[in-house]
């Protein structure tokens, strides 16, 4: 079934504000085969595109420059109008929340593949999901938002305060991006040919606040999370209201143990810089460290992280508060959490 609706940006309450439903129009439809297709009804710039599968979604993404939407929890707030009015989307919306491939969560050898449109509730419920990600989701938003919000959306939104994103940095997650090559139509990029996929480390996908390296013809299709990398983990979210409030700061660390020493460790701090902060150099200082070496290194490491962060003043918190809390959380992690694991007392 195709749904093609024009959202009138200023329609008031009542009546039928929108509603062209019917056969697809435009030359882009039907790229995925069975006809019908989905494309914007008319040429308003806020069409609702409802592809049936990934191939069609990628074609529509390329042809219409459409903005992907799954749970809508960010976009509907960002574009909301006053009470009773429609979200004033400025570009066609590509609804990908029901595409089967994008909703699946599967285990492939040593990694978990989470479809970009899998909702938080499903991710948290999956038996293979790492404990630190389950905890992150448990502290994220409220049931109403966890039931529709997606990890793909948290990545695409690229907020420095994205809670799931911070934990995905700590987990060394990779993002799968897909597009269709130019064969069979448009030439160059964004055609109707084969689906082409590439995998990119999450820190290379998110390039700044709201900025990503996702191409205009690409969609996030999945996140790959290595399994077995979290013998220990530590997660703290600092926010106002426990539910729903965006984080003032998020702190996620996890790693492996080799006996009573650290194998590999990764540490990510969110909302204290333009993107999540991670330092391979500082992490490597801890490789192989036992609890005594952690104690020796901790001042150097705390200072190292405090130099890397550049928190801002905004409506949620102040720069000085974020700096102070970062220092406190680093202390809690290095002085209490890590020694506990290295003593074997956890």
């Amino acid at each position, binding site marked *: 079934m195709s749904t093609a609706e024009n959202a009138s940006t200023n329609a008031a309450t009542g009546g039928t504000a929108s509603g062209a439903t019917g056969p697809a129009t435009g030359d882009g439809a039907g790229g995925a085969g069975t006809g019908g297709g989905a494309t914007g009804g008319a040429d308003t710039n806020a069409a*609702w595109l409802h592809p049936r599968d990934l191939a069609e979604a990628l074609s529509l993404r390329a042809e219409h420059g459409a903005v992907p939407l799954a749970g*809508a929890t960010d976009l509907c707030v960002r574009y909301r109008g006053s009470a009773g009015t429609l979200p004033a989307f400025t570009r066609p919306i590509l609804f990908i929340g029901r595409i089967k491939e994008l909703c699946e969560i599967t285990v492939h050898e040593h990694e978990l593949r989470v479809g970009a449109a899998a909702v938080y509730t499903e991710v948290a419920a999956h038996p293979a999901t790492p404990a630190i990600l389950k905890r992150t989701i448990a502290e994220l938003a409220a049931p109403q938002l966890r039931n529709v919000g997606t990890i793909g959306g948290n990545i695409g939104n690229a907020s420095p305060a994205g809670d799931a994103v911070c934990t995905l940095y700590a987990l060394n997650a990779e993002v799968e991006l897909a597009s269709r090559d130019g064969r069979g139509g448009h030439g160059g990029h964004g055609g109707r040919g084969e689906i082409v996929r590439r995998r990119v480390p999450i820190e290379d996908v998110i390039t700044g606040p709201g900025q990503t390296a996702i191409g205009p013809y690409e969609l996030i299709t999945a996140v790959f999370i290595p399994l077995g990398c979290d013998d220990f983990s530590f997660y703290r979210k600092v926010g106002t209201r426990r539910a729903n409030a965006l984080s003032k700061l998020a702190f996620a660390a996890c790693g492996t143990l080799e006996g009573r020493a650290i194998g590999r460790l990764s540490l990510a701090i969110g909302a204290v810089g333009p993107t999540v902060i991670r330092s391979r150099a500082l992490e490597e200082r801890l490789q192989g460290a036992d609890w005594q070496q952690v104690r020796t290194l901790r001042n150097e490491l705390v200072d190292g992280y405090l130099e890397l962060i550049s928190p801002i003043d905004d409506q949620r918190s102040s720069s000085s508060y974020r700096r102070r809390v970062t220092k406190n959380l680093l202390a809690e992690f290095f002085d209490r959490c890590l020694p506990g694991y290295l003593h074997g007392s956890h």
Partner: protein
Amino acid sequence: MRRLLDVLREDCGLTAVKEGCGEGECGACSIIIDDRVVDSCILPAGAVEGCAVETLEHIRETPRGRLVVDGLSQGGGVQCGFCTPGMTVAIDALLRHNRAPSEHEIRDGISGNLCRCTGYQQIIEGVQRTADALQELGE
């Protein structure tokens, strides 16, 4: 694309669905989609094509829904009443998936619903009362 909230209220006449904040913070517009509670104020109507949509008008007529309403009203969990429809829906959704929630789980279950009157304690006690009643019913 219209919001599901507006379609439910204006086209379907289902006015138990309230608009509070309009941005997914307060839960007054809570409804159940495929057995899960969501905020209808930030959900485009097209996103629920093919889904089962339940509002309070239906839920309050079910055995469990009636017990949720009783639990809230008997324990003083209803004061001004504006949050009550959404709160009732969120509690019903919680009890669908968890028949004997702990206090922590109840608090999480209603964490997306703001109430400015009760201070929540009476609501939490109401949920506990409902859970007990459900056990007795064998529901």
